[in-house]
């Protein structure tokens, strides 16, 4: 019995060590979020005000409207080592500029098709509509995306960048 206990404690220790190791080198995805000034950026603030915690993997870039996001920005983010890109704007019908988000939707969808051909996982580019008051959704979106990206591992484009 003693032997069993001993062996288990050794194994536990080993496991812990492994975990600690892994923790150090654990992959932390980087997400670039292009957030619309009127909705998603505000939602991110509300998440803060409400203290909805989410993983620290995201870096927001504020834009006036998702309609102004040139697909080139998104591609550049991937080129520069982003593991995921989030485009977050107003619900359809809520656009501060009438219809910018509809155009964003068309563009992102087209880009997704292209990235798909390129072999990029679908989860890496995400389009979300987040109401100005919906801090919960912003936090959940980041948490969910970070989780998925962790499982996916580093972006395939990253290697090239580093080399």
């Amino acid at each position, binding site marked *: 019995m003693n032997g069993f206990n001993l062996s288990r404690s050794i194994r536990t220790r080993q496991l812990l060590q492994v975990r600690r190791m892994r923790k150090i080198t654990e992959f*932390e995805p*980087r997400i*670039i979020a292009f957030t619309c000034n009127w909705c998603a*950026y*505000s939602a*991110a*603030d509300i*998440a*803060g*005000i409400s*203290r*909805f*915690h*989410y*993983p*620290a993997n995201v*870096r*927001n*870039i*504020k*834009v*006036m*409207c998702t*309609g*102004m*996001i*040139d*697909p*080139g*920005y998104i591609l*550049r*983010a991937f080129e*520069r*080592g*982003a593991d995921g890109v989030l485009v977050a704007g107003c619900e359809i019908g809520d656009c*501060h*500029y*009438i*219809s*910018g988000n509809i*155009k964003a939707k068309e*563009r992102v969808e087209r880009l997704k098709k292209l990235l798909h051909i390129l072999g990029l996982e679908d989860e890496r580019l995400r389009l979300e509509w987040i109401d100005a008051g919906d801090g919960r959704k912003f*936090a959940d979106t980041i948490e969910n995306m970070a989780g998925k990206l962790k499982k996916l591992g580093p972006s395939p484009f990253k290697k090239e*960048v580093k080399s």
Partner: protein
Amino acid sequence: MSDVRIGIFVCHCGKNIGGVINVPEVTEYAKTLPDVVYAEHNLYTCSAEGISSIRQKISEHKLNRVVVASCTPRTHETLFRNACEAAGLNKYLFEFVNIRDQCSWVHMQEPEKATEKARDLIRMGVAKARLLEPLEEVEIRVTPSCLVIGGGVAGMSAALNLANQGFEVYLVERDKELGGLLLNLNRLFTINGKAEEVIIPLIERVKNHQKIKVHTSTEVKGVAGFIGNFDVTLDQKGEERKIKVGTIIVATGAEVLKPVGQYGYGDKSNILTQLELEERLNKGMGDEQNIVMINCVGARIPERPYCGRICCMVAIKNAVLIKENDPRAKVWVLHRDLMTYGTEFEKYYQKAMEKGIRFIRYSLDKPPEIVGNNKVKAVKVYHQLMGKEMVLPCDMLVLTTPLIPHEDNQDISRMLRVSLSEHGFFLEAHLKLQPVEFATDGIYICGCARWPTDVPEAISQACAASAKAVIPMRRGYVRPEAITASVNEDKCSGCGTCVLLCPYNAIELQSKDGKKLAHITTAQCKGCGTCGAACPSGAISMNHFRDEEILAQVEALVI
């Protein structure tokens, strides 16, 4: 780039940031970033001390870019921008980095990661700040006069409100006389006063007002220009006239649907519309004892799905007048829902019930039928709530029809470059918060041209449209968004993609040196950037959000 001098102010926000993020370390890090010549941290950057420090350090260190890393621009950007301006720095050379709401508050349990994120965010902010350019807020002079199109109750009310505030008004009416639809009405609900007692004095006041120039039998033939400077061509029976106005109010009203072919209207002599009944009531009714009214004729049907909003009240009003005229008369109102919304209308409906007017609900699948050859003798109706067919004797059948948009709304919308909704009425900029404004600055809408309204609603909207029109005229200038799109004419291929995309009709193709080039009317641009994102030539850029500014942020993601 060497002459860029950036100063950074990192805020502790008490413990809100400082309790999570290692602010001194971040500040030290900020000093290592390119072009940063100064960095400090404050307990509260937004406090009086913090603000004076920004102003002081701008002059002390000859800063020409300022970055504040603190809470959120949504609440504090104006404050810091003003601080910069006060120190003589163009306010668009300020950049905000959000390390509280979007960092310390959401990553409290991970101070190290939060600190790392703060470093990243500041690095990205600085990357953008290096590229910031000063923006000028241009001022466009506004001619203090307004063109009001339509001389009904809405148009005249708007004109009077404007004129009483001292602005020149050109009131253009297509018909020979002012007055619009009200000229044909008998009495007005809910006060039951004579329509002429309302409209005639209004016409007099308008005609006698020094500041109002009335143009009857006149149409607007052309409109060019933009807010503050519209060039308008009026056409009075072939005679053209040009005027210059700063703002335009559309108050062209609507017309009553003539239900030709429905329920025998047009064939049978004793069928009227409510509008025709008004005339009869005005002149004096005959000896009709049995009056049947059918509501929703031509409304709430697949071809015309909307509800006419005021038709129920029109029918009830006329029913009440018939009853008051002859209490022995039997009046039946066949309806599909009684739209007596609000306090006064519901009370009026109760009054009608007291008078003995009877209401029968019918459904669209079993519409009423008429009986009789040359004249309607009776109306057959399936009483939906009794599940039973009734035959009502009928001496006079009155059809309640909705207001419909004028046919020439199309032409006006094209001329003014404003939109129509699917129903053919004019489309406001935002259904809820901008109900009397068009997406195009300087042009406003009120009354039945927008949607059927009763008289008080039309007057409210007229005043509201006037409020919007006087704002730029009182100020004398407009300062359009500084954050707008601009065209690099060397790159523009004149493809026109942007023209189609712009939700504000702010872009058009203009000929220049034999080339077609996109031209942006800055006064009309709201800065959404949709055009820039779509421009295949990269010729359009959005001030303050130029490609290189955003890409610099992206680039800064990885060191």
